[in-house]
C-alpha cells in the first residue's frame, strides 16, 4: 500500500527516469515509507533538479570549454605507457585528447577490441566434436585470421649463393598453430608456396613437407637478395595492418552471471576487415579510430565513440568528474555536418561565418586579407564579433530586452 503511494508521488514529478530510479533507491535504502516524507524528499530533489538545468541563453559552449580545459591543464603532457588492458601500448592523456578533438585521420596507436561471437564458438565446438578442443582454441582460430603472419614468424630463411636459391625451413609447430583448420603440414606448405609464387613471380620447389626453395630467374646475387627482401613483406595470413593480437578472458557484460568470454585486443586496426571475419561479433567489436567507425557504422556511432574515447581518456587521468554533458556537446558539434569535423582552425572554428570571429581565433592577418580580397560582409551575429566592435552580445541578459516602468492602466493595481 505504502509502496504504491510512493510510486504515485515519484511518478508525478518532473524528474527524468534516471533520477526517479535513483529516488526510489534512496527512499528504499533510508527506509522511508510514509507519503509525507517521501513528498518532501521528492520536492527537494525536484527543486534542485530544476535549479541545475541550463537557462535559456546560457553559453553552454563556453562552459564546456572551461570545464574540459581546466582539468586538461592537469593532464600529463606525455603519457605513453601500457594501458590497463593486455600490455598493448596506447596513447593516453593530453596527446590522445588532442588527437581526438583534432579528428586525426589515424590515431598514433590504433587498436581494436574484438569480441568473439558466442554462437560461432558453439558451432565450432560442435563441429570439432573433440574434448580437447576448447573455447580458447576457437578464439585462437580467429586470432590467426586477424594477426598478420609474415615469413619470419613461420620459419628460417636462408640463402644459398652457390645454387642461387632462397630456402625456407618452416617450423611445423607454428604452421599447426596458425593454420588450425588445415589438415597436414604439406597442405599448408603448398599454400604458402603458392602465395610466394603469385606475389614474387617465381617458381618454387618443395624438397620436403616443410621446406620451400626458389631462386631468381636469372642467377644474380642482387636478384637473390631482392627476393628475400620482398619475401619478408608478404602477408601470408591475417590483416596487414594488425601487427599483434592479445587474447584475454573477461567477464561478460551481463552482470547477473559469472560467465567469461574471450576478448581480443589488437595492435593496429582494420575495422572493416575485422567485422567481415567469420566468428567476430559484429555488434560489439569496436576500435579507437573514429574515422574507421564513421566509415563502417556512420555518424551516430562516431559521435558515440568520440564521447566514449574522450571520457575514458579523462577518467584514465583521474579527471572523471568532468561532466559527460560537456563531452556530448563536443561530440555533437564535431558530428553536426554529417561527417567528422575537427575543432579548431581547420574545422569548426575555421568555418564560422563571421570574418572577425575567425580572425580573432588564429592566423588573424590571413583571414582579414582573404576577407578583404573577396569583399566579405560580417553580419555581427555572433559573440566574438560583437565583443570586438563593442556591442552587447546575444547571450544571457544581452539577448533580452527589458523595459522598466509601468503602463498607466496597471499603475493602480501594482501595490508591490
Amino acid at each position, binding site marked *: 500500500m505504502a509502496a504504491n503511494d510512493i510510486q504515485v508521488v515519484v511518478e508525478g514529478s518532473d524528474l527524468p527516469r*534516471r533520477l526517479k530510479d535513483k529516488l526510489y533507491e534512496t527512499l528504499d535504502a533510508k527506509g522511508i515509507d510514509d507519503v509525507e516524507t517521501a513528498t518532501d524528499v521528492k520536492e527537494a530533489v525536484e527543486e534542485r533538479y530544476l535549479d541545475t538545468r541550463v537557462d535559456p541563453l546560457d553559453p553552454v559552449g563556453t562552459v564546456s570549454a572551461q570545464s574540459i580545459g581546466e582539468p586538461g591543464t592537469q593532464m600529463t603532457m606525455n603519457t605513453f605507457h601500457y594501458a590497463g588492458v593486455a600490455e598493448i601500448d596506447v596513447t593516453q592523456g593530453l596527446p590522445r585528447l588532442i588527437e581526438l578533438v583534432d579528428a586525426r585521420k589515424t590515431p598514433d596507436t590504433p587498436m581494436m577490441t574484438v569480441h568473439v561471437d558466442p554462437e560461432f564458438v558453439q558451432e565450432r565446438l560442435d563441429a570439432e566434436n573433440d574434448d580437447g578442443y576448447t573455447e580458447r582454441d576457437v578464439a585462437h582460430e580467429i586470432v590467426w585470421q586477424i594477426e598478420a603472419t609474415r615469413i619470419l614468424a613461420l620459419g628460417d630463411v636462408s640463402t644459398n649463393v652457390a645454387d642461387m636459391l632462397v630456402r625456407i625451413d618452416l617450423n611445423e609447430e607454428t604452421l599447426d598453430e596458425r593454420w588450425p583448420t588445415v589438415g597436414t603440414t604439406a597442405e599448408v606448405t603448398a599454400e604458402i608456396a603458392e602465395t610466394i609464387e603469385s606475389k614474387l613471380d617465381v617458381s618454387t620447389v618443395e624438397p620436403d613437407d616443410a621446406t620451400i626453395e626458389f631462386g631468381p630467374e636469372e642467377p644474380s646475387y642482387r636478384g637473390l637478395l631482392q627476393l628475400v627482401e620482398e619475401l619478408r613483406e608478404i602477408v601470408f595470413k591475417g590483416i596487414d595492418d594488425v601487427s599483434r593480437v592479445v587474447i584475454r578472458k573477461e567477464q561478460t557484460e551481463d552482470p547477473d552471471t559469472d560467465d567469461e568470454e574471450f576478448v581480443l585486443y589488437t595492435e593496429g586496426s582494420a575495422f572493416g576487415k575485422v567485422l567481415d571475419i567469420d566468428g567476430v561479433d559484429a555488434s560489439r567489436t569496436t576500435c579507437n579510430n573514429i574515422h574507421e567507425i564513421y566509415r*563502417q557504422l556512420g*555518424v*551516430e556511432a562516431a559521435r558515440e565513440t568520440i564521447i566514449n574515447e574522450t571520457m575514458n581518456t579523462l577518467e584514465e587521468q583521474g579527471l572523471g568528474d568532468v561532466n559527460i554533458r560537456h563531452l*556530448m556537446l563536443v561530440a*555533437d558539434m564535431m558530428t553536426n555536418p554529417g561527417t567528422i569535423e575537427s575543432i579548431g582552425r581547420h574545422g569548426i572554428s575555421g568555418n564560422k561565418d563571421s570574418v572577425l570571429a575567425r580572425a580573432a581565433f588564429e592566423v588573424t592577418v590571413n583571414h582579414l586579407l582573404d576577407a578583404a580580397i573577396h569583399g566579405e560582409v560580417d553580419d555581427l551575429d555572433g559573440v566574438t564579433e560583437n565583443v570586438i566592435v563593442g556591442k552587447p552580445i546575444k547571450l544571457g541578459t544581452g539577448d533580452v530586452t527589458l523595459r522598466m516602468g509601468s503602463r498607466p492602466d496597471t499603475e493602480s493595481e501594482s501595490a508591490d
Partner: protein
Amino acid sequence: MVDASQHNLVPEHTIVEEEELEEVLDEYNIDRTDLPKIKRRDPPLRELDVEVGDVIRIERDSRTADRAVVYRLVIE
C-alpha cells in the same frame, strides 16, 4: 558488408513522416536546414531507402536521460 544497424554503437534510425516533422520544427521554431545533417550514404541508412531532404529520427540510449530523440537532415 556488415549490417551497421546491428551494432551496439548505432541507435535506431527511422524516416520521419512530414506531419511529425512539422510538429518538431514548429516546437523548436527552426527550419529543416537548421537540423544536424547525415549523409545519404551513411551506413545505417543503407536499408532505409532515403532521399536527400528526408529527415531521419534517431533514438539514442542517452547517458543523461532515458532516451533521447534527435533528428538529422539527409544531405548529398
